[in-house]
């Protein structure tokens, strides 16, 4: 029962209030501002051979080892152009912190719950899985990223 209430609460939290925003390709995303641990410029990272390709590597975050997930690959988007360096957005998830590699960081936005809508049905499945909903802002759409699902990349035993 308790856990049910908890999930409802977190759903509520994620569907209203303040969002940290970022860009991946031409998509404009937001995550609950409370779930963001910190934002770092691109860090040198250690490559993990045999890991799924969405995992860019491991970074040393003051002694904590954090897995970095490339959002372009996670969303099945084309790779970043040449010189562009991604930014680390470190978010907390139930299983510890993960770093999302995004193109660019945006502002923190206050949004109005009334502008919320569930993601359109015809969205590409690769993205639809990860998007909780959409806020219709004045000039663009803000996609609410489901960080738990984004971080949920489990590797089967690799032979």
């Amino acid at each position, binding site marked *: 029962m308790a856990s049910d209430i908890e999930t409802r609460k977190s759903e509520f939290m994620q569907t209203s209030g303040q969002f940290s925003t970022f860009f991946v390709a031409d998509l404009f995303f937001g995550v609950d501002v409370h779930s963001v641990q910190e934002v770092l410029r691109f860090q040198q990272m250690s490559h993990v*051979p045999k890991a799924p390709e969405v995992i860019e590597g491991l970074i040393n975050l003051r*002694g904590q080892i954090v897995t970095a997930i490339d959002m372009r690959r996670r969303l099945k988007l084309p790779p970043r152009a040449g010189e562009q360096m991604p930014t680390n957005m470190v978010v907390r998830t139930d*299983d510890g912190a993960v770093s999302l590699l995004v193109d660019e960081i945006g502002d923190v936005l206050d949004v109005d719950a009334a502008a919320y809508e569930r993601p359109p049905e015809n969205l590409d499945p690769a993205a639809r899985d990860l998007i909780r909903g959409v806020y219709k802002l004045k000039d663009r759409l803000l996609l609410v990223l489901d960080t738990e699902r984004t971080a949920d990349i489990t590797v089967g035993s690799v032979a």
Partner: protein
Amino acid sequence: MQDQDVIREFLVESHENLSRLDQELVVLEKQPEDAALLASVFRTIHTIKGTCGFFAFSTLERISHEAETLLSQLRDGKRKLTPSLISLILETVDATRTVLASIEANGEEGPDRFEELAGRLRQAAQLPADVESQTSSDLALAPLTKIQGEGSSSNIPEDVKPEKNSAKPSAAADANIRVGVGLLDKLMDLVGELVLTRNQILQFNTEREDAALNATSQRLNLITSELQEGVMKTRMQPIGVVWNSLPRVVRDMAVSLGKQIELEMDGADTELDRTIIEAIKDPLVHLVRNSCDHGIEPPEVRTQGGKPAQGRLTLRAYHEGGQVNIEIGDDGAGIDGARVKQKAVEKGLLRPEQVEKLSDREVLNLIFLPGFSTAQTVTNVSGRGVGMDVVKSNIEKIGGIVDVFSRPGEGTTVKLKIPLTLAIIPGLVITSGGEQFVIPQVSLLELVRLEADSAEKRIEHVHGTPVYRRRGSLLPVAYLNEVLGLQSSDRADAVSVVVLQAEDRQFGLVVDGINDTQEIVVKPLGKQLKGLTVYAGATIMGDGRVALILDVLGIGESAGVLTESREQSRAAAEQKPQAGIEQQRLLLFRTGSFGRLAVPLSLVARLEEFPRSSIEHAGGRHVVQYRNRILPLVPLRAVLEPESPDQDQASDPVQVVVFNDGDRSLGVVVDQILDVAEETVTIRQKSSRKGLLGSGVVGKRVTDFLDLNQIIHASTEAWFQGVGGAASGKNILVAEASAFSRGLIRSGLEMEGYRVREVANLDEAVRGLEQQSPDVVVAALDLPPNGGVALLEAMRGRPEWKRIPVLALADSTGQAQLSVAQTKGFQDCQAKFKREAMLESVARLASAPASDEMELVCVGEEK
């Protein structure tokens, strides 16, 4: 939430109380007149009873109440303390533990109400005192165990000793506080981090000529080392924490085996990291049980052999060279080398000619082979062929070593060498494909460098497989960059080979460069990478970069150099035995009128003997309890010769060949195991008889080959039909995050004959559905990441899954949850731990395919 905390506190406290009770009771048995000790036992039970009342744990309250009544009579001198009374009270302690475990797992007291125990306690308290003492004096055994401590190793904690106990009970409590393990772990992490930063500062310092910086960094260095040591110490626990339970174990063993055993413990204050303490607990208990059961002889045998009737079991722990040594020694019969050899041959583990070549030392080490047990009879205490191999692999898992020394007639000593801590380990830093990796030092045997001109000569190829001639024997070799799929560097001048040990096999790993050894701080990998078996974790190097720690076993398996591993024999068991010409090892046995039957040895998991009395009936079938599971038995005779009348005239003990099929086991009962043969087999003639493949010539005699697939299939089907009827073959997907609950649900379903697949979260569930459509999906409402509803939605979104019924599992079936589940479109909702209701619901859903209206029900929420 607060309630949860209080209950956790209650559990911690009760466990402490119970371990103290265990010790006190064993001592009390020796000193029944010790009033202060008795009073302490009484108080402890009283405390437990009081707290249970507070939480309304009625089962606990009742049994502790009955025990208290009994103890109050003892305390008041109305009744004399007898061994049988002690046993009864110890039983109460066990029952209490069982209930506590259930509370810890699911917050409820569990189904067993222990009515019978409570009844016996009540009866004992009502019996007139003189009758009780009379009846039990008949049963009374001489003092069975005697506890002897030496110096600080005394196994009775200070506060149990009567005089101190009554004087000032709380002196220790004031000087100590309880600290959560989580906090200590966090501190350890921070210290690891500080160590790395210190290393960087020191490096920085050497590059500069600055006196002030120099002095400061030296000081930092010193303080960091001290801090590291201090924090390490907070995680240390005396090994006595694990030993505390052993007097009780030994006492119980002695009683049930009719032996007299004295337990001596030395070095109980030797300290180990808590993670290690946790890991050696089970192996230690197992070794002690082994010594009691197989080592120490019954009193009459001992006196005949000129030894004192009372056997002696010694536990020693001491530090040596940065490691902790633990010795478990007995003065029993010792290990009979000849019997070990004979047994190894009988069990088909080695061929006779192989056995003859072994040294005495190697013969002793045979007992660590899986499937080995020298016990003449299978007792309920040990000797089921599990055991020493498991002990060994558990100890090796934490980087330890097991050694056994034995002299016939004088006793056996098992010696464990264990590292002090797992958090910081020595490792070898290597490079491959431009990346740095760390190999844990414990797996490292030697380093070999092959110079350019000889390299090609010395890494040779057998049918494309690289091998290296290492002092005359062939060592399989793998290239790390190939295993990890990295760019191979130009193999220019020299090749570096790291020789590694994984379990009991060795292999060489070719790396690009070998750097140096370092103390590394082991950090776990994120969930996303847990599934990669080739890594054991990660660490941070002096330059701040992350390096992966290689899992030697995983690398070996991934490279395919650990071919003859146990896993593979299991995999072979799943393959269909094929007719035709093959060179293979065969197990020969006899049953009924079939004088010579054979199955490939690779399919056999184990050979076992069970006493006829241990065979039980369940669901109209023969079963035995085996390795904590129920093993169904198939009398081969009944399968091959159903018409033959005298089915039950088999020998005692019963000979059983155990096969594994997936994760199910099946025991086939045969009359006699004959031999193991290795030959080229040609199946000459096919058979039309059910259960036989055909016949061929083995060892110049005609032999029938068993069709194992058919037998397993036929009998498992019957096994299910015996219990669950229509359930057999239905496919259930269980989606639930907690492995514990999953296990419960799974076993419930499997007992009914369903085929069950488990998944832990949404993604796995979707993948599971993609692999094979189940007949019913059982989904926990709290399934990560977004609840069972998300799974339901995912399923309803795909036409092929639309009609699969989904049963929701709630933590409780309050009306609220039930109606939530129904509006969401689940076909049914049941409480997680109400097994009967769940099974009924699954049976209903499995038999009636979902109706059309389900498509309508899925209503969106989240508004």
